[in-house]
């Protein structure tokens, strides 16, 4: 028991170290690219919210929302970098409602994907299962036809 229990704290501590490194890098990045950090901080808020609400261990919802959110934020980061990375430019972008609409709209699409795709996948897989059941039933019907109803004797309820 003890031998198996040992890796868990080590993994937690490694995760904590990764988090620490990430935060440090983000802090360094924020300091180095202050205007970009401002746009990202405002634009990536839906992803942060998803991270908070997503209880799933794999954080699939967070990933989906974050990816779409990032794709919505990316044009403005590029614009900031191409026009000159200053706080004024960053603030100008942040003040534009279109910026908000695009960045948060993209995140919204991410949320839509989270809601729609699993259902669609479920529908497809359910249909596939139904087809499998139909195949089985057809085979059973064939067996009954060839061997008679007695072929059910092992499965028939007493």
């Amino acid at each position, binding site marked *: 028991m003890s031998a198996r229990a040992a890796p868990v704290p080590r993994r937690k501590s490694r995760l904590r170290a990764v988090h620490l490194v990430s935060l440090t890098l983000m802090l360094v990045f924020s300091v180095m690219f202050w205007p970009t950090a401002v746009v990202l901080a405002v634009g990536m808020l839906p992803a942060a919210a998803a991270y908070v609400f997503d209880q*799933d261990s*794999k954080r*699939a*919802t967070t*990933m*989906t*929302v974050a*990816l*779409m959110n*990032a*794709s*919505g934020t*990316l*044009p403005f980061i*590029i614009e900031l970098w*191409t026009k000159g990375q200053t706080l004024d430019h960053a603030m100008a972008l942040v003040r534009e409602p279109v910026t908000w609409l695009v960045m948060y709209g*993209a995140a919204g*699409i*991410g949320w839509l*994907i*989270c809601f*729609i*795709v*699993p*259902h*669609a*996948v*479920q529908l497809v*897989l*359910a249909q596939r*299962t*139904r087809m*499998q*059941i139909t195949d*089985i*039933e057809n*085979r*059973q019907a064939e*067996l*009954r*036809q*060839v*061997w*008679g109803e*007695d*072929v*059910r*004797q*092992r*499965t028939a309820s007493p």
Partner: protein
Amino acid sequence: MSQPEDRPKPLAKLRDDYVISSASLPVPVGSRGEAWKVFQESSNSIPDLFALTGTSVGCYRIDAIETTRKLANSGLFAPLDWGVVDWPGKEQRVALIFPKLPGTPLAQKRRYSDQDIVGTILPPMVAMLRAFAEAGFAHGGLGPATIYAGSSGELTAGECISAPPSALQPAWLQTIERGMASPFGRGAAQIEDDIYAVGATLASLSLGSLSIVELPDAEVIALKIERGSAGAITGRQQLSGGLGELIRGMLDDDPEQRWSLHTIQHWIAGRRTIGHQAWARQKPSRGLVVNGTEYFDVRSLAEAFSKYPADAMKLIANDELIKWVKRTLKDPALVSRIVNAVNMPILKSRSSTEALLIARITIAMHPAGPIRYLGLSVMPSGIGTQLQKAMAAGESPQSLAEVISCQLPKYWFNLQSALANDNLTQMKKLDQAKIYLDKAGSGLGLERCLYELAPSSPLLAQELTSKFIFESHALLQGLEALSERNDKPAFPLSRHVAAFLLARDTQNTRAFGRFIAARDPAEVALGSLHGLAGLQTRFGPEKLPGLARWLEVAVQPYIARFHNRDTREILRTDLQKAAGTGNLQAMLNLVENAAMMHRDKDGFFQATLEYERLEFQAKGLRDQLTPGALLHSEAGKDVGTIVAGILSTAIAAGILLLQWKGA
């Protein structure tokens, strides 16, 4: 001989040779059925042949025909040929072809002198009886009207095939015991019975007319019991000294005291010193009253008990019978037998208990007499012919079945002072009959008892009454003819036919083993096919298309036992083809294919396993479809992430491309 121009209209033909004409003749005394003139196709002139014909109700001694033919040179009038003929009216009859009657009956001459009797009648008669005894045969119907004297004085005993032994013989020519039995229940005759009949015949020839001849059978028996047979037959007439001794010896009522052929030959040879004085039993001082009549002899009392069972029960219940036997007859053995009969446990209903008790007591009182049960009076060896007569005439055979099932014959045999070999064989047969009777399966029961106990009985199946079938191989032709009829039964082998085959065709018994035990119609059908195919293989004919089609339908339940639809269809098609050829063995080979049956069973087992496995799979899949199940939610989320990844990558790539182009 008559000329061919005189030939009357033909009625039937036997073996394409003997033509039975429509000219009827008087039936000879001692024969049964109808008599017709016969002419031969191969002969230009009509020989003086005649035929005796009869229906299935007749009980012919078919099993004795060969013996009588062998004895034809020893003075027995035997048939030239016999067989079953098609009779007008779509029925069949048994036909026995005889030559011209061998003279005139002895009875036609009113009286014979002692010299005639001793010199010309007795020696050939004894020679004839000697030949009978050596052949293990007894006539069972001898008498002054059935013994013929030829033109040169030779004697011939009349035919004895058309009726069971003693069935047509008047009571005065029979021993007391056989006379008490019903005509068809007298059973096999012994040579001692023929000696007795010849003794009575000689008395009749010597004295001319006998008053006993005119009396009813019951009175003849009562008179014989009262006076002894010799006294009853001669009446008040006196026989001459020497002949009287011979006749009294031949008519002795004690079979052990009755003169044997050896004794008679000694007497003929002139050694008449071995005199015999038949003595009448001393009449007891007091009799026993049954139904207002006082009886002094246990033999007549036994007869009265069977006629008046209520009175008999009273005498048994208040011990009057035992007291009378003890005090009056003073016969300890008889008392012991009666006491044992009274005390034997009987496990039946009240009415049959009384009948059974009376039957046992009457056997105990008169062990040599017939078995008397519920109005029946039958010798154990006559049960078969009595059963045959009852079943052929449509009478109820219930009482006979009870006689067998209550083992009355066994009780009768146990009380006999000596058992002949014939009796031992008969006892075994009757024991076996009880076993058959206790089993209800097809091929068993009372029908089997009939064919085992009456070896000369034709098949008495209702559906084949118009046919006369004596041998198992003739059955196939009968069934083939029946198969053409619209009213044929659903199954070719009725209980009668099955029992007949099992009793007559002993080679088939093994093949029918399955059939006997079967409860399942499919097994019965296969057993039938087995039996009939065996018969066809051994006796032919090669083609029996009607019967084959009938059996094809009958074996469908067996084919339905194959699980595989395709196998069944193939089998049905092949069977139909085989039935078309009329070859039953080919049909049997198809149906009884062990390898095919094994394959089918194996395939069916595999199919059940596969079905079970599929059922489990389907259940698992159905469970996934239930509304509460979390079906593929994780997979859905992952797919969502992938979609988002692809989409965002595409967007990013597009933006970068636009930027690069703009730059």
